[in-house]
Each structure stands twice: as structure tokens, then as C-alpha cells.
């Protein structure tokens, strides 16, 4: 039984604890011993993506110190995991645990699919669901083949979701278009960010989605914020909540 350290992104910890709970329960259901190292805070992505490497580096070092020594580190977030995998070598190049932690850190669906070999998730989710493919999961972690590349098609998240009982997955037009969140982009380029988000909601609505799900709560927070402001009927759920199923 692998010991999995749960890496809960900062804003998920504070604003979406139910997503972390769902992640924990899902991992336990698939045979993992799960622990939450309390010294963790934030992976440093907001600073790193704003170009503030000096501010991000201490957080990268804290992360590597905190998560060293576990079999695996799993997070319900594609972009935070991409941060660890792709940006930490530049931020903490001399950390003795860099390679160990990087190579053992996974996004939740990636972990279920690639490491645990899960293809079928027990559970029921009898709703029409649109999958929002978050960019960092999509193009940094390669959770799916991507509309730009000419490679054999695959989609790890969709594979897991479609195994649920009763779920009806619908595809929005422009399957892997960005939602416009982009971290601080959501504030510094507010006009574009919100237009992109509304377009994404429209595309999901046209496809008939009652629920929009995805691997990154940050993208979903942006979409949810727009939907709430406009009183749109769509519900936003993290993929961990959906995979946990209803009434199980």
C-alpha cells in the first residue's frame, strides 16, 4: 500500500476543502494510505508565473523539504503539479530532494490512471457533464493528446470520468480552449480573462453541460465566479468530487 502525501493547493485548502476531502477519499478508496503534511503552504506558482523567481524560490524549497520521503505526492491540480515538475529545477536547482520529489509528484487523475492503473472508477454520477481541459494539465502534463498535436488520441481524465455509472459526457466546441484564468492574468488582463471565461461557459452550455468539471480548481473558480455573477444554471465541480460519485 503506497503512502501518498496529499498536496493541497493553497486556495483549495482555504476555499474548497471539499475538493481536498474528495481527493483524500478517492485515493483511500483506491488503496492508498494518505497523509496530509501540515507544513505545506503554496507551491509558489503565483509568484513564479509573474516572473518573481526570488519570491517563489523559498516556497519551492519549503515544498521539497515538506514532501521528501513519501512514496508519492498527489495533488488535485494540474497547474500546481506542472509547477513542481517544470519550474522547480530553475528555482531550487541544488536542492538534494529535487529529483526525488519531482519524479514522484502527480496530478490526481494522472496518478490514478498511470501509477495505480485505474481504468474504471466505481460510482454514479447521473448528470450531463462537460469536461474543461485545463491548459497546464493538458499541455504541460499531457493528460490528453491535445487538438494541436498529430499524435494518437488519448484523454486520461475522460477515460476515468466516462467509467462512472450514469454519466453523460458532452464535448464543448474548441475542446481544449483556455478558460482565461491564467493566474494573475485574471486580474491584470481582466477584460480578456472574463471574455474568455464567458465564451467557455457559452460553449459548454451549447453542448448541454449541466455540470462543468476539470482538474484545476483555479480555472473552475474563474468559471464559477462568472457563472454566479450572471446567475447561470451550470454547476461547477472538481473532478475529484465527480469521481467520488453521488450517493455512494
Amino acid at each position: 500500500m503506497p503512502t501518498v502525501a496529499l498536496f493541497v493547493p493553497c486556495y483549495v485548502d482555504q476555499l474548497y476543502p471539499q475538493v481536498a476531502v474528495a481527493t483524500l477519499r478517492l485515493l483511500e478508496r483506491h488503496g492508498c494510505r494518505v497523509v496530509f503534511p501540515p507544513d505545506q503552504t503554496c507551491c509558489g506558482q503565483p509568484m513564479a508565473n509573474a516572473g518573481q523567481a526570488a519570491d517563489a524560490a523559498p516556497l519551492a524549497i519549503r515544498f521539497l523539504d515538506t514532501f521528501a520521503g513519501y512514496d508519492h505526492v498527489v495533488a488535485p491540480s494540474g497547474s500546481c503539479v506542472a509547477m513542481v515538475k517544470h519550474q522547480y529545477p530553475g528555482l531550487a536547482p541544488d536542492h538534494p530532494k529535487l529529483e526525488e520529489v519531482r519524479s514522484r509528484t502527480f496530478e490526481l487523475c494522472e496518478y490514478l490512471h498511470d501509477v495505480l492503473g485505474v481504468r474504471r472508477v466505481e460510482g454514479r454520477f447521473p448528470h450531463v457533464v462537460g469536461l474543461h481541459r485545463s491548459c497546464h494539465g493538458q499541455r504541460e502534463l499531457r493528460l490528453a493528446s491535445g487538438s494541436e498535436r498529430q499524435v494518437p488520441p488519448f484523454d486520461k481524465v475522460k477515460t476515468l470520468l466516462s467509467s462512472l455509472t450514469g454519466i453523460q459526457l458532452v464535448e464543448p466546441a474548441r475542446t481544449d480552449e483556455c478558460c482565461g484564468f491564467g493566474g494573475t492574468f485574471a486580474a491584470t488582463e481582466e477584460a480578456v480573462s472574463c471574455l474568455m471565461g464567458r465564451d467557455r461557459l457559452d460553449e459548454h452550455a451549447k453542448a448541454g453541460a449541466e455540470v462543468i468539471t476539470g482538474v484545476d480548481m483555479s480555472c473552475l473558480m474563474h468559471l464559477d465566479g462568472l457563472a454566479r455573477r450572471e446567475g447561470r444554471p451550470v454547476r461547477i465541480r472538481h473532478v475529484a468530487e465527480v469521481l467520488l460519485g453521488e450517493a455512494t
Partner: protein
Amino acid sequence: MTAPATTPAAPTVHPGGQQSGPFPGHPAAAARFIADVDRAHWHDQALWFVRVKRDRAAAQLPAWERLRDLAQAIKAHALSDLARYLEEFERNATAHGAVVHWARDAEEHNRIVHQLLAERGVTRVVKSKSMLTEECGLNPYLEARGLEVVDTDLGERIVQFRHEPPSHIVLPAIHIKKEEIGELFHDKLGTAAGASDPKYLTEAARGHLREKFLGAQAGLTGVNFAVADTGAVVVCTNEGNADMGTALPPLHIACMGLEKLVPRSEDLGVFLRLLARSATGQPVTTYATHFLGPKPGGELHIVLVDNGRSALSGRDPFRRALSCIRCGACMNTCPVFRRTGGYSYGTTVPGPIGSVLGPTQGPGAHATLPFASTLCGSCADVCPVRIDLHHQLLAWRKELVLGGFAPVGKTLALRLTAWVFASPWRFALAGRLARLALRLLPRGLMATLSGAWGKQRDLPPPPPESFRDLYRRTHGRP
């Protein structure tokens, strides 16, 4: 960010066009473009249509990803030994009778071109296919010296009529609707009032341009590829206008950036297959003309322009941006470019590649560009030469912060956040306070306090406790 309504003395704007006055930075320029949301959506759809064509064309080549690898490798190799290949090119081009000129910067390029024209008493130049001359500001330079310069690519002619620069490097008039072109041509070319049929308008432009071709004493073109082992320059067009412009007049001046060089003729096959498919979704451009020496009785002059390129070739990771073959695919796929248009970038080359190249010309003036991206990475995945564009944007952000070009307020706010994150108890406390504020303060006040977030978006309803508190309550400390 600056909202359009509060911007003092808003500069005048063509419908969908470029504003006059100083460049206000990407966020403000973009917000202004988006204020006309129907136009922003129309622009988005027009470019997405091209992206879809590109996908279909790429899917028809089973070796697409392999071709991209090859293209990347050839470019990397050429750039790693550029000086040698440039000399080889010059030797071979000269042997075929071309005259090769070297220009350090835009000013020297313009001077060389003007001198060639002036010495031969040229009064009218027809021009085709050159973003480099846009970069160098050649048109105004020549016009100020009494020459008539006629852009002959249809899109470029349209923006030239409107006194605008191209808004896209392959589709220079993509921001203009056909009805607006109808009005413009009615005004400039005497087409029927209210006519907007593209075929009719194109015919009118063709007749107009034919006159210009016949009356020109010199043809000026850009260069898509220059081949070191033969000394040829290759120009790709769909309208055949580079051929028209160079076939008639006795003088052909070809202007190229140093980075256009490929080592061997065999390499061209890789790039010609990638270029048109990436740019417009065509299997190949309609005309790919090889100029090997001047035509009988004519002159061919090739101007090799540096203008910051050799400096860039010494800078990791930005040197990879020199591999760009100017297909424009990154623009067509970029969700920000699609919705904000080329003029929101304030550079000759806009979009993702422009946001990498722009700051190399002066980081201060272009400091907002590397931030005008969600780092979604679609640009890197469509790039036919595999430039890691979004990673380069990230690298630029670091440089801009180090150089003091990032907004001070944002930098300090993130520094404070990092300080909070540096300790688990500070983080837990700050989170508790934030959730309390979310719960207690009225929604309207929260919207104001959350600033740019709250203008169009709600914050999530706050949970009673954080995950870490819940975990400690249920599991105790591990």
C-alpha cells in the same frame, strides 16, 4: 488595469483598427478592442476558422510531428553556425550575379534601399511580402524622400489605404470586415457603393494593382528562405504578386533578416510543407519562387539585415525565437490574440512570437506583452519549428521583474503573499481572516475589495473551515 471609460483622452480608433497616440500597454488596448464584444467575437471566429484549417492540413501529413522535429533541428543547426552559412550564402549568391548588402540596423537597411532606388531614378516601387520592411519603417522612409511605395499583397494594400500597419503577419487585414473593405474601395477605387462581394472587390483591386505593377521601376520583396548552398532566395505568396512585381521592372531588391537562412536546398522541402499548412491550412503556397541571380539584363540586390538578431542569437532561451518562419499559427491559436487583435500588441509582429520578440527591441516599451498570455501553451504546440513560446514568455517575465519593468503594486502584493506563504501559521491565519471577511462583508463591498476579480466575477462562498483545520480535527497531527 485601466478601464476604457476612465482612460483620459481616449485616442481615436478606426473600427477594429489601430489607435493613434502612444501605445497604452496590452491590457488597456485589449480592453478597448473588447469593448466592442461582437467585433471581438467575430475576430476570434475568423482566426479560429484558420486554426481549424491548419489542424485539418496538419492531420493529413502522418509525419507532421517528425517534420516539426526536423525543422527545429535544421533551424537550431543553422543558427548555431550562422556566420559560416551567411558567408557561404553570400559567396553563392554573388557567383550567380546578385549583389549582397549588409545592414546592421533598420536605418542602414532603409538607407541602402533608398540609395539603390535613387541612383536609378526610381519613383515608384511595388512591394510584396515583407514584414521586415515594416519592422524597419521603410515605407515612411521612402515616402518622405518622394517615392511612391505600393504594397501589392491584397491585405497589405487594404491596410495601406487605411494608413494602418498590418494587424497580423500573414493576414494583415484580418481585423477589417468585408463591408468596410467595400466602403474603402468605393472611396479609393470607385467600386459600386455598398458592394461587399469579396470576388468583385478582389477583381477591382487586381485591376488597380495591375496598373501599379506596369508603372513600377523597381520591385521589392521580402524573403521566406535563403539557401546557403545555392545562394537562392525563396519568396512564397498566394497572389503571385512577388512574381508580378519582380518580373517587369529591371531592379529587384530582396530584404531579409539574417535568420532566414537554411543550409541546403533539401531543407526547403521540410519548411515549405510546414509553412503554408501552419499559416493558412493550404498544402503549399500557390507560388514559391526561387530567385537565383538577376534576370537577364536586370539586377538583383539582397539586403541582409541584423537589427538586433545577432544579439538575440547569443541569448538563451530567446535565441530559439530566431527559428520563427513567420507562419502566424501562434497568433491564430492564441485565445488572447484572437479576442484582442494585432494592434493590442503595439509591435510589428504581434501575438505570442511578437511578445517574445518585442521586448528584445526595448523591454520598457513592451513590458506588458509577455504578461498578455495565460501561458496556455497552445502556441508552442502549433509552432511548426517547436519554439517553446510560452516558456519564453515566462523567461521574459523574470527578466522584466529583475529589470524593474513590472508594475510595482503587483510585485509588492505578490511579495507579501509569498511572505505569508513562507510560514504555515501565517498562511492559516491569513486564510481564516479572508474566509471571515468573505462571510461577514456584504457582497457589494467584497466585489470592490477584490478589485479586478470582482468586477465581473463573484468569489466562492467561504467554507466554515479550511481543509487543514478539518484534517487536524479528524486525524490529529500526524
